[in-house]
């Protein structure tokens, strides 16, 4: 899923300090799971902002809505009738949701309330780690199911570098060396000899390098 992190409230206040009517818009998908932008976080942010404005002696109306998703037309339509009643909308969705919202409500001020971080997994509650960089050409079949692009600081296809130490990466002693993980897994699979296969120079054209990407499935288009 997409992992996001709450923005500091001071930054959000900087965007909306001139507003008198605000909508805080949550999303019930990934940002709910990573506890950055679901219904609960919408409530927390709205309360904090109310407190801030109260201390300023200002009356600002702050509404809370959480949509099923912000990356789908049909759910974003649910606020069609109310969207223009606000001076601004703070979206707690990922960057995709914020942009889709802004596209749909073209003349409405829309601000991000979270920093979108990466594609990752919940290792335990309160701890999420990166697993995928959506490069568009999956190589997991060759690397024991562990991605060196997402998990090696130098995204080495033929690692590890000389900075692998006791299973950790040289840039951070808490970070696993992806290549140590790959080698351990190849060993567990009884396929350590695969380590010596040279991975070819990668086609990055399906990555960010190829420009904004799209997937089109004509067979399912209506």
């Amino acid at each position: 899923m997409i992992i996001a992190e709450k923005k500091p409230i001071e930054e959000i206040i900087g965007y909306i300090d001139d507003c008198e009517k605000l909508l805080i818009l949550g999303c019930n998908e990934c940002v709910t799971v990573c506890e950055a932008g679901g219904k609960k976080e919408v409530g927390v942010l709205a309360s904090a902002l109310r407190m801030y404005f109260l201390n300023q002696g200002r009356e600002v109306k702050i509404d809370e809505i959480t949509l099923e998703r912000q990356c789908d037309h049909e759910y974003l339509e649910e606020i069609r009738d109310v969207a223009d009643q606000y001076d601004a909308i703070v979206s707690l969705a990922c960057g995709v949701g914020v942009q889709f919202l802004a596209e749909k409500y073209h003349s409405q001020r829309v601000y991000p309330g979270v920093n979108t971080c990466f594609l990752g997994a919940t290792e335990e509650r309160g701890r999420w780690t990166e697993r995928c960089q959506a490069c568009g050409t999956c190589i997991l079949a060759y690397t024991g199911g562990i991605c060196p692009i997402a998990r090696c600081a130098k995204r080495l296809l033929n690692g590890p570098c000389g900075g692998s130490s006791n299973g950790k990466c040289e840039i951070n002693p808490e970070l696993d060396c992806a290549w140590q993980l790959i080698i351990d897994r190849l060993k567990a699979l009884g396929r350590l000899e695969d380590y010596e296969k040279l991975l070819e120079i990668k086609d990055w054209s399906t990555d960010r390098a190829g420009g904004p990407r799209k997937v089109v499935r004509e067979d399912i288009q209506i």
Partner: protein
Amino acid sequence: MSDTARSRLHRMLLEGHLAVTSECGPPRGSDAESIKKKAEMIKDYVDAVNITDNQTSVTRLCSMAACIHLKLMGVEPVLQMVTRDRNRIAIQSDILGAASFDIPNMLCLSGDHQSFGDCPQGQNVHDIDSMQLIQTVRLMRDEGKFLGGAEINRPPNMFVGAAANPFADPFEIRVPRLAKKVAAGAEFIQTQCIYNLDKFEEWMKGVCDRGLHEKVYILAGVTPFKSAGMAKFMKNRVPGMDVPDEVVKRMADTPKEKQPEEGINICIESIERLKTIKGVSGFHIMAIEWEQKVPEIVERAELYPRPKID
């Protein structure tokens, strides 16, 4: 191993001499005098001089320009190139640029992570990795082709090297990793600084058991300690460095004013032992900001005078 010498360093190895290389870091400014001065100090004591490429990710005068300065003063350079800062277009372009000045040796590296340097907020590129850089320069040289398939007019003719760290983890793939670099096309290897000679010997045994020493020239890396503080720093703070406790203790037990001399002694003793290890083809002396000591090390290690090979 090919028998047409592409460089003085290559010829030295082909003729069976123990090669000696050293390295110089370019300055953090545009005055090339400092690097010329360093090269002048060591030029009669080494066969070639590596020029580092923004080592430790600290921005410096570029390796290529520094190599040209050396070349113009008659010192043979080894162009170090990292994949951190260039995509495949820039890499191929820089290889051609170096070839246009007939820079005859190149060392292919991935480069330290930028978080250690002066631009920790910068991007890294790593479009290709160090093994793929070896493959790239070999393709350009041997087949006269760009990665895109087009032919190169006057292909580069470099002697191609890579680094190896026998001490990094996991140890079990350190020999296979060398085999991979050899398969990618590395013709010479310069190793990480060696302080743990037992472990190095174990690695070299694995290298020789697979016959890799007959496919690639291995230059053993050594770095003299200037002080006990440096030994401790290398042991504790430099990733992938293996400094045994007894070496640190030996430095620490030496009075401060005698420590530089003791550091040189350790270095020379290491070279003496490395000479006895099967598969070692020479030495890479990295006297970090201490280039003036290279002549003494080379002389005392009985590697001077350098063989005449014209």
